[in-house]
């Protein structure tokens, strides 16, 4: 969270919004938002309905919380990248931004052309996902 907060301006510049979801109450979320000066939306899933539906309900801890997870969702609400962890960690903001940088620079994009045989989920997959999301998220001027 703090990691993504520290890079919020760069996400903004990349034309990507950020929202963060937990089971905290609005009051707890508001306090956290102010404490960390978070510039993005905090969503409150107190009923655990969303984390249950998304398969991210960790019932073993503190009355049920979310597993740390990160999704890239495009304007058609299609998931372009997803990553979840069973421990308190997530793909770093720097890694995500490095991928965005690679995508926006055409030369690097060619160098990172998708490999059809790739099965390992890693930075390349994420970069490709973000690139697709940005390209597909915008409307074609001809349609």
């Amino acid at each position: 969270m703090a990691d993504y907060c520290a890079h919020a301006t760069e996400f903004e510049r990349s034309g990507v919004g950020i929202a963060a979801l937990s089971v905290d109450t609005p009051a707890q979320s508001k306090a956290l938002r102010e404490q960390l000066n978070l510039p993005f939306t905090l969503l409150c899933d107190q009923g655990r309905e969303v984390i249950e539906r998304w398969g991210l309900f960790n019932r073993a801890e503190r009355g049920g919380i979310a597993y740390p997870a990160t999704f890239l969702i495009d304007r058609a609400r299609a998931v372009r990248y997803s990553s979840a962890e069973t421990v308190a960690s997530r793909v770093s903001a720097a890694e995500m931004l490095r991928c965005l940088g690679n995508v926006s620079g055409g030369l690097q994009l060619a160098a990172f052309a998708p490999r059809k045989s790739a099965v390992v989920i890693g930075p390349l997959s994420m970069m490709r996902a973000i690139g697709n999301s940005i390209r597909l998220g915008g409307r074609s001027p001809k349609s």
Partner: protein
Amino acid sequence: MAIDADKMPKAGAIAPEFELSDSEGRLRRLSELTTERPLVLIFYRGHW
């Protein structure tokens, strides 16, 4: 207990719509948050 991989939205799937309160008490829909630009949605552990 573990992540339910069958339920977790995968790349290519449509993210399930939801409506939740934000920290200011306003109801927000996922579809609204993705209307104008792509969204990085973070699930975090919350208050310790």
